[in-house]
């Protein structure tokens, strides 16, 4: 499979993603500068984490108007697989490819630590190698990951099973204590209605090698590779 990893000014997790896709998973992957347009031949586009445009105005708000985004939006609308991680998730929200918006963490602090997550939907392109209800561990590192949507949007997300990952206790319970940033309904990751666009705040690329402290994130990429091959 061929992955494109989009690089905006201020993106910083692009090399982590390239490392995992190429070295750990043996896939073809190349960085895509945000000025590129007319992308062709990719099986998946990844918007990695970082601080695109210094988080000016709102997180992801300026990157959303980078030249490459027109192509990303068209690619997603044609059904192409897109993953937005952390800042990438924020950009997908600003671009309207996923519903909702991000607010400052309710603690107002930047949170960088491992969290436990419950897999709420194991039937998406990106989660098929997890078990439904399985609790996994991945790191988060963000100041604005407090997911918000109005009540109608939340009802739609729940009704259409678009919530893929939720912050949960190690036993899989949804508690306020285990919700690090105050996200609505403990939401950590969602897909669009069609199921081809995923946004998540945790960093699967930082949990893909045992030597780096965890491997639970690798199955997310493996799920996609497996889903697209079969």
């Amino acid at each position, binding site marked *: 499979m061929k992955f494109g990893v989009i690089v905006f000014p201020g993106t910083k997790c692009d090399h982590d993603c390239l490392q995992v896709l190429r070295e750990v998973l043996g896939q073809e992957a190349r960085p895509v500068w945000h000025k590129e347009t007319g992308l062709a031949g990719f099986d998946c586009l990844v918007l990695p984490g970082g601080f695109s445009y210094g988080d000016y*105005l*709102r997180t992801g*708000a300026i990157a959303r*108007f980078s030249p490459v985004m027109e192509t990303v939006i068209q690619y997603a609308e044609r059904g192409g697989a897109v993953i937005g991680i952390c800042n990438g998730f924020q950009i997908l*929200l*600003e671009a309207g490819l996923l*519903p*909702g*918006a991000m*607010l*400052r*963490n*309710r*603690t*107002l602090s930047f949170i960088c630590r491992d969290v436990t997550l419950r897999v709420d939907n194991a039937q998406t392109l990106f989660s098929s190698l997890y078990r439904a209800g399985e609790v996994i561990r991945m790191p988060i590192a963000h100041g604005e990951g*407090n997911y*918000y*949507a*109005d009540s109608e949007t939340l009802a739609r997300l729940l009704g259409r099973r678009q919530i893929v990952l939720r912050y949960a206790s190690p036993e899989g319970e949804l508690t306020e204590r285990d919700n690090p940033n*105050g996200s609505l309904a403990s939401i950590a990751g969602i897909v669009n209605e069609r199921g081809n666009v995923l946004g998540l705040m945790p960093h699967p690329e930082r949990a893909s090698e045992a030597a780096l402290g965890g491997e639970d994130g690798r199955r997310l990429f493996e799920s996609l590779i497996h889903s697209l091959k079969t």
Partner: protein
Amino acid sequence: MHARVFVSLKRSVLDPQGKAVRGALETLGLKGIEDVRQGKFFDLELADGDPAERGRELDSLCQKLLANPVIEDYRIEWVT
């Protein structure tokens, strides 16, 4: 033409920064603060043009970029 655009979180959206500022103001001894909401404003210098048309253009830009309508309200003020 000089426009000022005010952007703030919708009333229905919790404003954690405003809440923290309110707590700090209370710590400083200011009593009876019921709520604090934090926002931002943009000063825009625009080339002269038809005010109605300029207003429509600016309104559309507010919705696309200056504010995120999912969580924020905005208000345009013309400064003379």
